Protein backbone atom coordinates (compact mmCIF):
# COMPACT_ATOMS: atom_id res chain seq x y z
CA UNK A 1 0.00 0.00 0.00
CA UNK A 2 1.64 3.20 -1.16
CA UNK A 3 0.80 5.92 1.33
CA UNK A 4 0.70 9.57 0.49
CA UNK A 5 -0.05 12.33 2.90
CA UNK A 6 -3.74 12.97 2.55
CA UNK A 7 -6.73 14.65 4.09
CA UNK A 8 -8.62 12.24 6.30
CA UNK A 9 -12.18 12.98 7.38
CA UNK A 10 -10.92 13.07 10.98
CA UNK A 11 -7.61 14.22 12.56
CA UNK A 12 -4.89 11.58 12.24
CA UNK A 13 -1.77 11.76 14.42
CA UNK A 14 1.36 11.85 12.25
CA UNK A 15 -0.50 13.09 9.16
CA UNK A 16 0.39 16.60 7.95
CA UNK A 17 -0.51 19.12 10.67
CA UNK A 18 -3.68 17.31 11.78
CA UNK A 19 -2.34 17.00 15.34
CA UNK A 20 0.63 19.36 15.73
CA UNK A 21 0.91 18.69 19.45
CA UNK A 22 1.56 14.94 19.14
CA UNK A 23 3.80 12.61 17.17
CA UNK A 24 3.58 9.02 15.92
CA UNK A 25 6.86 7.53 14.80
CA UNK A 26 7.97 3.99 14.13
CA UNK A 27 11.36 2.50 13.41
CA UNK A 28 11.12 -0.49 11.11
CA UNK A 29 13.99 -2.95 10.67
CA UNK A 30 13.96 -6.09 8.58
CA UNK A 31 16.20 -9.12 8.77
CA UNK A 32 16.07 -12.48 7.01
CA UNK A 33 17.36 -15.95 7.78
CA UNK A 34 16.95 -19.19 5.89
CA UNK A 35 13.36 -19.70 7.06
CA UNK A 36 11.81 -16.37 7.99
CA UNK A 37 11.63 -12.66 7.40
CA UNK A 38 11.58 -10.67 10.64
CA UNK A 39 10.11 -7.18 10.82
CA UNK A 40 10.99 -5.41 14.06
CA UNK A 41 8.99 -2.31 14.90
CA UNK A 42 9.38 0.18 17.70
CA UNK A 43 6.58 2.69 18.06
CA UNK A 44 6.78 6.03 19.79
CA UNK A 45 3.42 7.68 20.23
CA UNK A 46 3.03 10.91 22.20
CA UNK A 47 -0.71 11.24 21.68
CA UNK A 48 -2.45 10.54 24.97
CA UNK A 49 -5.70 9.99 23.05
CA UNK A 50 -4.28 7.28 20.78
CA UNK A 51 -2.20 5.63 23.54
CA UNK A 52 -5.25 5.60 25.81
CA UNK A 53 -7.41 3.91 23.17
CA UNK A 54 -4.72 1.28 22.56
CA UNK A 55 -4.37 0.68 26.30
CA UNK A 56 -8.08 0.05 26.75
CA UNK A 57 -8.33 -2.17 23.63
CA UNK A 58 -10.46 0.16 21.52
CA UNK A 59 -7.54 0.74 19.15
CA UNK A 60 -4.39 -1.18 18.23
CA UNK A 61 -1.09 -0.61 16.52
CA UNK A 62 -0.90 -2.30 13.16
CA UNK A 63 1.98 -3.25 10.89
CA UNK A 64 0.81 -3.54 7.30
CA UNK A 65 2.97 -5.67 5.00
CA UNK A 66 2.44 -5.80 1.27
CA UNK A 67 4.35 -7.58 -1.46
CA UNK A 68 2.93 -7.21 -4.96
CA UNK A 69 5.33 -9.81 -6.30
CA UNK A 70 3.81 -12.66 -4.28
CA UNK A 71 0.30 -11.19 -3.96
CA UNK A 72 0.77 -10.88 -0.20
CA UNK A 73 -1.02 -8.26 1.89
CA UNK A 74 -1.66 -8.54 5.61
CA UNK A 75 -2.07 -6.39 8.72
CA UNK A 76 -0.71 -7.49 12.11
CA UNK A 77 -2.41 -5.85 15.09
CA UNK A 78 -0.95 -5.57 18.60
CA UNK A 79 -0.92 -3.37 21.71
CA UNK A 80 2.80 -3.40 22.58
CA UNK A 81 5.08 -0.57 21.42
CA UNK A 82 7.77 -3.06 20.35
CA UNK A 83 6.84 -5.96 18.14
CA UNK A 84 8.55 -8.58 15.99
CA UNK A 85 6.51 -9.90 13.06
CA UNK A 86 7.68 -13.22 11.65
CA UNK A 87 6.73 -14.19 8.11
CA UNK A 88 7.93 -17.35 6.35
CA UNK A 89 10.48 -16.47 3.69
CA UNK A 90 8.40 -18.48 1.21
CA UNK A 91 5.75 -15.73 1.30
CA UNK A 92 7.78 -12.70 0.19
CA UNK A 93 9.99 -11.82 -2.73
CA UNK A 94 11.39 -8.64 -4.24
CA UNK A 95 9.84 -5.35 -3.03
CA UNK A 96 8.08 -5.41 0.34
CA UNK A 97 6.32 -2.31 1.64
CA UNK A 98 5.84 -1.93 5.39
CA UNK A 99 3.64 0.73 7.00
CA UNK A 100 2.77 1.29 10.64
CA UNK A 101 -0.52 2.67 11.92
CA UNK A 102 -2.80 2.93 14.90
CA UNK A 103 -6.32 1.82 13.95
CA UNK A 104 -9.69 1.68 15.69
CA UNK A 105 -10.65 -1.86 16.67
CA UNK A 106 -14.24 -0.88 17.42
CA UNK A 107 -16.59 1.86 16.29
CA UNK A 108 -15.87 4.96 18.40
CA UNK A 109 -18.43 7.75 18.61
CA UNK A 110 -17.62 11.38 19.47
CA UNK A 111 -13.92 10.89 18.72
CA UNK A 112 -11.71 13.92 19.34
CA UNK A 113 -7.92 14.09 19.60
CA UNK A 114 -6.07 16.11 22.19
CA UNK A 115 -3.72 18.77 20.79
CA UNK A 116 -5.25 18.58 17.34
CA UNK A 117 -5.15 21.52 14.92
CA UNK A 118 -7.32 24.50 16.00
CA UNK A 119 -9.46 23.90 12.89
CA UNK A 120 -10.81 20.82 14.69
CA UNK A 121 -11.68 22.70 17.91
CA UNK A 122 -15.07 21.64 19.17
CA UNK A 123 -15.46 18.95 16.49
CA UNK A 124 -15.89 15.26 17.12
CA UNK A 125 -16.15 12.35 14.72
CA UNK A 126 -17.70 8.94 14.41
CA UNK A 127 -14.87 6.49 13.83
CA UNK A 128 -15.55 3.04 12.40
CA UNK A 129 -13.68 -0.14 13.08
CA UNK A 130 -10.52 -0.20 10.97
CA UNK A 131 -10.24 3.58 10.58
CA UNK A 132 -6.69 4.91 10.75
CA UNK A 133 -6.11 7.23 13.72
CA UNK A 134 -2.30 7.51 13.56
CA UNK A 135 0.19 6.95 10.75
CA UNK A 136 3.98 6.62 10.70
CA UNK A 137 6.58 6.84 7.95
CA UNK A 138 6.62 3.64 5.86
CA UNK A 139 9.62 1.75 4.59
CA UNK A 140 10.37 -0.42 1.56
CA UNK A 141 12.68 -3.44 1.56
CA UNK A 142 13.93 -5.83 -1.09
CA UNK A 143 14.01 -9.57 -0.53
CA UNK A 144 15.42 -12.20 -2.88
CA UNK A 145 14.11 -15.69 -2.39
CA UNK A 146 13.96 -18.22 -5.19
CA UNK A 147 13.85 -21.93 -5.91
CA UNK A 148 17.62 -21.81 -6.27
CA UNK A 149 19.77 -19.17 -4.63
CA UNK A 150 21.98 -17.22 -6.96
CA UNK A 151 25.37 -18.46 -5.89
CA UNK A 152 27.91 -18.44 -8.69
CA UNK A 153 29.01 -15.04 -9.97
CA UNK A 154 28.64 -16.27 -13.56
CA UNK A 155 24.89 -16.65 -13.00
CA UNK A 156 24.46 -12.88 -13.01
CA UNK A 157 25.62 -12.91 -16.62
CA UNK A 158 23.93 -14.09 -19.78
CA UNK A 159 26.18 -14.83 -22.74
CA UNK A 160 24.47 -14.50 -26.12
CA UNK A 161 25.24 -14.40 -29.83
CA UNK A 162 25.01 -11.08 -31.63
CA UNK A 163 22.23 -10.90 -34.23
CA UNK A 164 24.76 -9.22 -36.60
CA UNK A 165 27.14 -11.14 -38.85
CA UNK A 166 30.91 -10.86 -38.89
CA UNK A 167 33.70 -10.59 -36.37
CA UNK A 168 33.27 -7.99 -33.66
CA UNK A 169 34.50 -7.26 -30.15
CA UNK A 170 32.51 -8.56 -27.20
CA UNK A 171 29.82 -6.09 -26.01
CA UNK A 172 28.12 -5.69 -22.61
CA UNK A 173 24.63 -4.43 -21.69
CA UNK A 174 23.76 -3.62 -18.09
CA UNK A 175 20.10 -2.63 -18.18
CA UNK A 176 18.44 -6.04 -17.77
CA UNK A 177 17.91 -8.58 -14.97
CA UNK A 178 21.28 -10.07 -15.94
CA UNK A 179 24.38 -8.54 -17.45
CA UNK A 180 24.16 -9.41 -21.16
CA UNK A 181 27.44 -10.37 -22.78
CA UNK A 182 27.15 -10.33 -26.56
CA UNK A 183 29.65 -12.28 -28.64
CA UNK A 184 29.97 -12.52 -32.41
CA UNK A 185 28.17 -15.52 -33.87
CA UNK A 186 31.46 -17.39 -34.45
CA UNK A 187 32.75 -16.65 -30.96
CA UNK A 188 29.44 -17.72 -29.44
CA UNK A 189 29.52 -21.06 -31.32
CA UNK A 190 33.02 -21.72 -30.01
CA UNK A 191 31.95 -20.71 -26.51
CA UNK A 192 28.99 -23.13 -26.64
CA UNK A 193 31.29 -26.00 -27.55
CA UNK A 194 33.77 -25.23 -24.79
CA UNK A 195 31.60 -24.21 -21.86
CA UNK A 196 30.67 -27.73 -20.76
CA UNK A 197 34.31 -28.78 -20.68
CA UNK A 198 35.25 -28.57 -17.04
CA UNK A 199 38.97 -28.30 -17.78
CA UNK A 200 38.45 -25.26 -19.93
CA UNK A 201 35.93 -23.41 -17.80
CA UNK A 202 38.71 -21.54 -15.98
CA UNK A 203 40.04 -20.27 -19.30
CA UNK A 204 36.56 -19.08 -20.30
CA UNK A 205 36.20 -17.32 -16.98
CA UNK A 206 39.43 -15.44 -17.48
CA UNK A 207 38.77 -14.61 -21.10
CA UNK A 208 35.13 -13.55 -20.83
CA UNK A 209 33.88 -13.22 -17.27
CA UNK A 210 36.88 -11.44 -15.71
CA UNK A 211 36.90 -8.47 -18.13
CA UNK A 212 33.11 -8.25 -17.99
CA UNK A 213 33.16 -8.17 -14.21
CA UNK A 214 35.93 -5.56 -14.22
CA UNK A 215 33.91 -3.40 -16.64
CA UNK A 216 30.86 -3.92 -14.39
CA UNK A 217 32.70 -2.65 -11.32
CA UNK A 218 33.71 0.49 -13.24
CA UNK A 219 30.14 0.85 -14.49
CA UNK A 220 28.79 0.71 -10.92
CA UNK A 221 31.33 3.34 -9.82
CA UNK A 222 30.30 5.57 -12.73
CA UNK A 223 26.65 5.35 -11.71
CA UNK A 224 27.44 6.86 -8.29
CA UNK A 225 24.41 6.79 -6.00
CA UNK A 226 21.98 6.15 -8.83
CA UNK A 227 18.93 4.50 -7.22
CA UNK A 228 18.06 2.76 -10.49
CA UNK A 229 20.90 0.31 -9.96
CA UNK A 230 18.98 -1.10 -7.01
CA UNK A 231 16.22 -2.21 -9.34
CA UNK A 232 18.62 -4.47 -11.25
CA UNK A 233 18.77 -8.02 -9.98
CA UNK A 234 22.39 -8.59 -11.09
CA UNK A 235 23.47 -5.52 -9.11
CA UNK A 236 21.76 -6.72 -5.92
CA UNK A 237 23.25 -10.21 -6.27
CA UNK A 238 26.73 -8.83 -6.95
CA UNK A 239 26.51 -6.46 -3.98
CA UNK A 240 25.51 -9.34 -1.70
CA UNK A 241 28.44 -11.39 -2.97
CA UNK A 242 30.86 -8.49 -2.40
CA UNK A 243 29.57 -8.06 1.14
CA UNK A 244 29.65 -11.80 1.86
CA UNK A 245 33.30 -11.99 0.80
CA UNK A 246 34.22 -8.88 2.83
CA UNK A 247 35.29 -6.98 -0.30
CA UNK A 248 33.25 -3.81 0.24
CA UNK A 249 36.33 -1.74 1.09
CA UNK A 250 38.56 -3.16 -1.64
CA UNK A 251 39.27 -0.15 -3.86
CA UNK A 252 41.36 -1.94 -6.51
CA UNK A 253 38.81 -3.18 -9.01
CA UNK A 254 41.10 -5.70 -10.69
CA UNK A 255 41.87 -7.23 -7.30
CA UNK A 256 38.21 -7.21 -6.31
CA UNK A 257 37.14 -8.88 -9.59
CA UNK A 258 39.75 -11.61 -9.23
CA UNK A 259 38.79 -12.30 -5.63
CA UNK A 260 35.12 -12.48 -6.61
CA UNK A 261 36.02 -15.08 -9.24
CA UNK A 262 38.30 -16.96 -6.86
CA UNK A 263 41.62 -16.20 -8.60
CA UNK A 264 40.82 -17.13 -12.19
CA UNK A 265 44.33 -16.33 -13.50
CA UNK A 266 45.85 -18.91 -11.18
CA UNK A 267 43.24 -21.48 -12.28
CA UNK A 268 43.80 -20.72 -15.94
CA UNK A 269 47.57 -21.08 -15.72
CA UNK A 270 47.21 -24.27 -13.75
CA UNK A 271 44.85 -25.70 -16.41
CA UNK A 272 47.15 -24.58 -19.22
CA UNK A 273 50.08 -26.26 -17.49
CA UNK A 274 48.15 -29.54 -17.22
CA UNK A 275 47.11 -29.37 -20.89
CA UNK A 276 50.72 -28.66 -21.94
CA UNK A 277 52.05 -31.52 -19.83
CA UNK A 278 49.49 -34.02 -21.17
CA UNK A 279 50.30 -32.95 -24.74
CA UNK A 280 54.06 -33.40 -24.35
Amino acid at each position, binding site marked *: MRLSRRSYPHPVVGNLDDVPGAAFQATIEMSVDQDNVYIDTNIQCSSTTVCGLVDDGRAAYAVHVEC*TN*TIFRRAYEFAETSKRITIPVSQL*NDTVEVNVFAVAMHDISSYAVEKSHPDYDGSSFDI*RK*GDIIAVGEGKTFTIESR*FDALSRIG*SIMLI*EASPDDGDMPMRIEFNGEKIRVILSKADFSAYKLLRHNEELSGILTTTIVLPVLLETLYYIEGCGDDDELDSLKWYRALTRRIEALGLSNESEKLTKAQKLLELPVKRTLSTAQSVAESAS
Partner: protein
Amino acid sequence: MKPLNILKENFAIKLAGSISDNLTRYKRDKPWLAEFAGSSSWDFETGLVPAEALALAMPDGDNLKDLENAIRMHSALPSLTPVQARDPRLWTHLTHVELWEYMRRRWPVEKHLSNKQRARNIIESRYFVARNESRALLRNGAARLWWLAKLSHDETRDNPYELTGILLSTLDITQQILERSLGRAPAIVHGFLEFLQINPELLGGGNVSRERIRQLAKFLNLNGGVCLLDCLSDTNVIAMLQGEYDQMRAQGGASASA
Protein backbone atom coordinates in the same frame (compact mmCIF):
# COMPACT_ATOMS: atom_id res chain seq x y z
CA MET B 1 4.35 -38.80 -9.21
CA LYS B 2 7.21 -37.22 -11.17
CA PRO B 3 8.67 -33.96 -9.77
CA LEU B 4 8.08 -30.79 -11.79
CA ASN B 5 10.74 -29.39 -14.06
CA ILE B 6 11.29 -25.67 -14.51
CA LEU B 7 13.15 -23.72 -17.18
CA LYS B 8 16.73 -22.66 -16.68
CA GLU B 9 16.75 -18.93 -16.21
CA ASN B 10 18.96 -18.14 -19.20
CA PHE B 11 16.77 -20.27 -21.42
CA ALA B 12 13.60 -18.61 -20.09
CA ILE B 13 15.07 -15.21 -20.93
CA LYS B 14 16.11 -16.41 -24.39
CA LEU B 15 12.66 -17.90 -25.05
CA ALA B 16 10.90 -14.71 -23.97
CA GLY B 17 13.20 -12.72 -26.24
CA SER B 18 12.44 -14.96 -29.23
CA ILE B 19 8.65 -14.68 -29.43
CA SER B 20 8.75 -12.97 -32.81
CA ASP B 21 11.08 -15.62 -34.27
CA ASN B 22 8.94 -18.42 -32.85
CA LEU B 23 5.49 -17.12 -33.86
CA THR B 24 4.74 -20.04 -36.18
CA ARG B 25 5.92 -22.57 -33.58
CA TYR B 26 3.01 -21.45 -31.38
CA LYS B 27 0.69 -23.05 -33.96
CA ARG B 28 2.20 -26.50 -33.59
CA ASP B 29 0.33 -29.42 -32.06
CA LYS B 30 3.33 -30.70 -30.11
CA PRO B 31 5.72 -28.93 -27.69
CA TRP B 32 8.92 -27.75 -29.36
CA LEU B 33 11.21 -26.41 -26.62
CA ALA B 34 13.73 -29.24 -26.97
CA GLU B 35 14.10 -28.46 -30.67
CA PHE B 36 14.48 -24.73 -29.95
CA ALA B 37 17.11 -25.40 -27.28
CA GLY B 38 19.21 -27.57 -29.63
CA SER B 39 22.06 -29.20 -27.76
CA SER B 40 21.75 -26.83 -24.77
CA SER B 41 20.30 -28.01 -21.51
CA TRP B 42 17.12 -26.00 -20.96
CA ASP B 43 15.31 -27.22 -17.84
CA PHE B 44 15.96 -28.95 -14.55
CA GLU B 45 14.09 -31.00 -12.01
CA THR B 46 12.80 -29.35 -8.83
CA GLY B 47 11.77 -30.94 -5.56
CA LEU B 48 8.13 -30.09 -6.29
CA VAL B 49 5.99 -33.18 -6.61
CA PRO B 50 2.35 -32.64 -7.67
CA ALA B 51 -0.19 -34.10 -5.25
CA GLU B 52 -2.14 -35.42 -8.22
CA ALA B 53 -1.73 -35.55 -11.98
CA LEU B 54 -1.71 -32.15 -13.64
CA ALA B 55 -4.42 -32.96 -16.16
CA LEU B 56 -6.62 -30.07 -17.28
CA ALA B 57 -9.99 -30.38 -18.99
CA MET B 58 -9.95 -29.23 -22.61
CA PRO B 59 -12.07 -26.14 -23.36
CA ASP B 60 -15.09 -27.05 -25.46
CA GLY B 61 -16.48 -24.18 -27.52
CA ASP B 62 -17.87 -21.55 -25.16
CA ASN B 63 -17.37 -23.84 -22.19
CA LEU B 64 -13.87 -22.75 -21.18
CA LYS B 65 -13.87 -24.97 -18.09
CA ASP B 66 -11.93 -22.34 -16.11
CA LEU B 67 -13.50 -23.26 -12.76
CA GLU B 68 -12.91 -26.97 -13.20
CA ASN B 69 -9.33 -26.34 -14.26
CA ALA B 70 -8.61 -23.83 -11.49
CA ILE B 71 -9.66 -26.51 -8.99
CA ARG B 72 -7.59 -29.17 -10.76
CA MET B 73 -4.54 -26.93 -10.87
CA HIS B 74 -4.77 -25.92 -7.21
CA SER B 75 -5.51 -29.49 -6.10
CA ALA B 76 -2.47 -30.76 -8.01
CA LEU B 77 -0.18 -28.12 -6.47
CA PRO B 78 -1.74 -27.36 -3.06
CA SER B 79 1.52 -26.70 -1.24
CA LEU B 80 3.16 -24.44 -3.76
CA THR B 81 4.48 -21.44 -1.80
CA PRO B 82 3.80 -17.91 -3.08
CA VAL B 83 7.48 -17.46 -3.93
CA GLN B 84 7.43 -20.64 -6.01
CA ALA B 85 4.06 -19.76 -7.49
CA ARG B 86 5.29 -16.44 -8.79
CA ASP B 87 8.37 -17.87 -10.52
CA PRO B 88 8.09 -17.33 -14.29
CA ARG B 89 10.32 -20.35 -14.96
CA LEU B 90 7.69 -22.69 -13.51
CA TRP B 91 4.70 -21.29 -15.40
CA THR B 92 6.58 -20.84 -18.67
CA HIS B 93 7.60 -24.50 -18.51
CA LEU B 94 4.03 -25.59 -17.82
CA THR B 95 2.52 -23.50 -20.62
CA HIS B 96 5.10 -24.69 -23.15
CA VAL B 97 5.40 -28.35 -22.16
CA GLU B 98 2.99 -30.11 -19.78
CA LEU B 99 -0.03 -27.92 -20.58
CA TRP B 100 0.77 -27.26 -24.24
CA GLU B 101 -2.35 -28.96 -25.58
CA TYR B 102 -4.57 -27.07 -23.10
CA MET B 103 -2.88 -23.78 -23.97
CA ARG B 104 -3.36 -24.39 -27.69
CA ARG B 105 -7.10 -24.90 -27.13
CA ARG B 106 -7.59 -22.13 -24.57
CA TRP B 107 -5.34 -19.44 -26.06
CA PRO B 108 -4.87 -20.35 -29.74
CA VAL B 109 -2.63 -17.91 -31.51
CA GLU B 110 -3.96 -18.55 -35.05
CA LYS B 111 -6.74 -16.02 -34.93
CA HIS B 112 -4.28 -13.24 -34.14
CA LEU B 113 -1.56 -14.08 -36.65
CA SER B 114 -2.80 -11.52 -39.18
CA ASN B 115 -1.69 -8.88 -36.69
CA LYS B 116 1.77 -9.95 -35.57
CA GLN B 117 2.02 -7.40 -32.77
CA ARG B 118 -1.27 -8.61 -31.33
CA ALA B 119 -0.10 -12.23 -31.64
CA ARG B 120 3.14 -11.38 -29.82
CA ASN B 121 1.19 -9.64 -27.05
CA ILE B 122 -1.11 -12.64 -26.59
CA ILE B 123 1.82 -15.04 -26.43
CA GLU B 124 3.74 -12.79 -24.06
CA SER B 125 0.84 -12.42 -21.63
CA ARG B 126 -0.63 -15.95 -21.82
CA TYR B 127 2.44 -18.15 -22.28
CA PHE B 128 4.89 -16.09 -20.19
CA VAL B 129 4.80 -14.11 -16.96
CA ALA B 130 5.58 -10.83 -18.62
CA ARG B 131 6.27 -8.44 -15.79
CA ASN B 132 7.28 -8.49 -12.18
CA GLU B 133 3.78 -7.70 -10.93
CA SER B 134 0.73 -9.58 -9.76
CA ARG B 135 -1.35 -8.67 -12.82
CA ALA B 136 1.00 -10.66 -15.05
CA LEU B 137 0.40 -13.78 -12.93
CA LEU B 138 -3.34 -13.37 -13.42
CA ARG B 139 -2.84 -13.31 -17.20
CA ASN B 140 -0.56 -16.33 -17.68
CA GLY B 141 -2.71 -19.24 -18.90
CA ALA B 142 -1.54 -21.65 -16.19
CA ALA B 143 -0.62 -19.32 -13.31
CA ARG B 144 -4.01 -17.60 -13.39
CA LEU B 145 -5.81 -20.89 -12.72
CA TRP B 146 -3.70 -21.62 -9.64
CA TRP B 147 -3.82 -18.06 -8.27
CA LEU B 148 -7.56 -17.60 -8.83
CA ALA B 149 -8.20 -20.79 -6.84
CA LYS B 150 -5.61 -19.89 -4.22
CA LEU B 151 -7.01 -16.39 -3.58
CA SER B 152 -10.59 -17.60 -3.26
CA HIS B 153 -9.99 -20.97 -1.57
CA ASP B 154 -11.66 -21.22 1.85
CA GLU B 155 -10.91 -24.35 3.83
CA THR B 156 -13.67 -23.58 6.37
CA ARG B 157 -16.45 -24.16 3.80
CA ASP B 158 -18.01 -27.49 2.92
CA ASN B 159 -16.90 -26.79 -0.61
CA PRO B 160 -13.55 -24.96 -0.26
CA TYR B 161 -13.82 -23.76 -3.87
CA GLU B 162 -17.34 -22.31 -3.49
CA LEU B 163 -16.03 -18.74 -3.74
CA THR B 164 -13.81 -19.68 -6.71
CA GLY B 165 -17.02 -20.41 -8.61
CA ILE B 166 -18.27 -16.89 -7.89
CA LEU B 167 -14.94 -15.33 -8.79
CA LEU B 168 -14.96 -17.07 -12.15
CA SER B 169 -18.64 -16.51 -12.89
CA THR B 170 -17.85 -13.33 -14.83
CA LEU B 171 -14.54 -12.00 -16.03
CA ASP B 172 -15.42 -8.55 -14.70
CA ILE B 173 -15.30 -9.71 -11.08
CA THR B 174 -11.75 -10.95 -11.49
CA GLN B 175 -10.67 -7.63 -12.97
CA GLN B 176 -12.51 -5.45 -10.48
CA ILE B 177 -11.37 -7.31 -7.39
CA LEU B 178 -8.10 -9.08 -8.04
CA GLU B 179 -6.41 -6.55 -10.25
CA ARG B 180 -6.64 -3.91 -7.51
CA SER B 181 -4.40 -3.78 -4.45
CA LEU B 182 -7.31 -4.87 -2.23
CA GLY B 183 -7.38 -8.15 -4.16
CA ARG B 184 -4.26 -9.24 -2.28
CA ALA B 185 -6.05 -9.23 1.09
CA PRO B 186 -7.79 -12.58 1.70
CA ALA B 187 -10.54 -11.24 4.03
CA ILE B 188 -11.45 -8.52 1.56
CA VAL B 189 -11.59 -10.92 -1.40
CA HIS B 190 -13.59 -13.50 0.53
CA GLY B 191 -15.93 -10.82 1.91
CA PHE B 192 -16.54 -9.37 -1.55
CA LEU B 193 -17.23 -12.80 -3.08
CA GLU B 194 -19.55 -13.81 -0.26
CA PHE B 195 -21.40 -10.50 -0.64
CA LEU B 196 -21.92 -11.34 -4.33
CA GLN B 197 -23.16 -14.80 -3.33
CA ILE B 198 -25.73 -13.16 -1.00
CA ASN B 199 -26.81 -10.84 -3.82
CA PRO B 200 -26.88 -13.23 -6.81
CA GLU B 201 -28.69 -10.73 -9.06
CA LEU B 202 -25.30 -9.00 -9.39
CA LEU B 203 -23.92 -12.11 -11.05
CA GLY B 204 -26.50 -12.09 -13.79
CA GLY B 205 -24.38 -10.10 -16.21
CA GLY B 206 -25.66 -7.09 -18.13
CA ASN B 207 -24.49 -3.52 -17.98
CA VAL B 208 -26.28 -2.57 -14.75
CA SER B 209 -24.79 -5.44 -12.75
CA ARG B 210 -21.38 -4.84 -14.24
CA GLU B 211 -21.51 -1.15 -13.39
CA ARG B 212 -22.71 -1.87 -9.86
CA ILE B 213 -19.86 -4.32 -9.23
CA ARG B 214 -17.45 -1.72 -10.57
CA GLN B 215 -18.91 0.97 -8.27
CA LEU B 216 -18.79 -1.34 -5.26
CA ALA B 217 -15.13 -2.20 -5.91
CA LYS B 218 -14.41 1.51 -6.25
CA PHE B 219 -16.31 2.23 -3.03
CA LEU B 220 -14.20 -0.32 -1.16
CA ASN B 221 -11.04 1.06 -2.67
CA LEU B 222 -11.95 4.61 -1.64
CA ASN B 223 -12.68 3.44 1.89
CA GLY B 224 -9.24 1.83 1.91
CA GLY B 225 -7.84 5.36 1.89
CA VAL B 226 -9.02 6.06 5.44
CA CYS B 227 -9.66 2.59 6.82
CA LEU B 228 -7.16 -0.26 7.06
CA LEU B 229 -9.45 -2.79 5.38
CA ASP B 230 -7.07 -5.62 6.27
CA CYS B 231 -8.11 -5.22 9.91
CA LEU B 232 -11.72 -6.03 9.04
CA SER B 233 -13.25 -9.48 9.02
CA ASP B 234 -15.02 -10.76 5.92
CA THR B 235 -18.28 -10.15 7.83
CA ASN B 236 -17.34 -6.47 8.26
CA VAL B 237 -16.55 -6.22 4.54
CA ILE B 238 -19.91 -7.78 3.65
CA ALA B 239 -21.75 -5.32 5.94
CA MET B 240 -19.94 -2.34 4.36
CA LEU B 241 -20.75 -3.50 0.84
CA GLN B 242 -24.34 -4.33 1.70
CA GLY B 243 -24.89 -0.84 3.15
CA GLU B 244 -23.55 0.78 0.00
CA TYR B 245 -25.48 -1.57 -2.27
CA ASP B 246 -28.76 -0.95 -0.43
CA GLN B 247 -28.18 2.77 -0.83
CA MET B 248 -27.40 2.26 -4.52
CA ARG B 249 -30.63 0.33 -5.05
CA ALA B 250 -32.68 2.85 -3.07
CA GLN B 251 -31.39 5.56 -5.41
CA GLY B 252 -32.25 3.34 -8.35
CA GLY B 253 -28.90 3.77 -10.08
CA ALA B 254 -25.52 2.17 -10.33
CA SER B 255 -23.80 4.61 -8.04
CA ALA B 256 -24.18 6.06 -4.58
CA SER B 257 -21.90 8.32 -2.59
CA ALA B 258 -18.73 6.62 -1.39
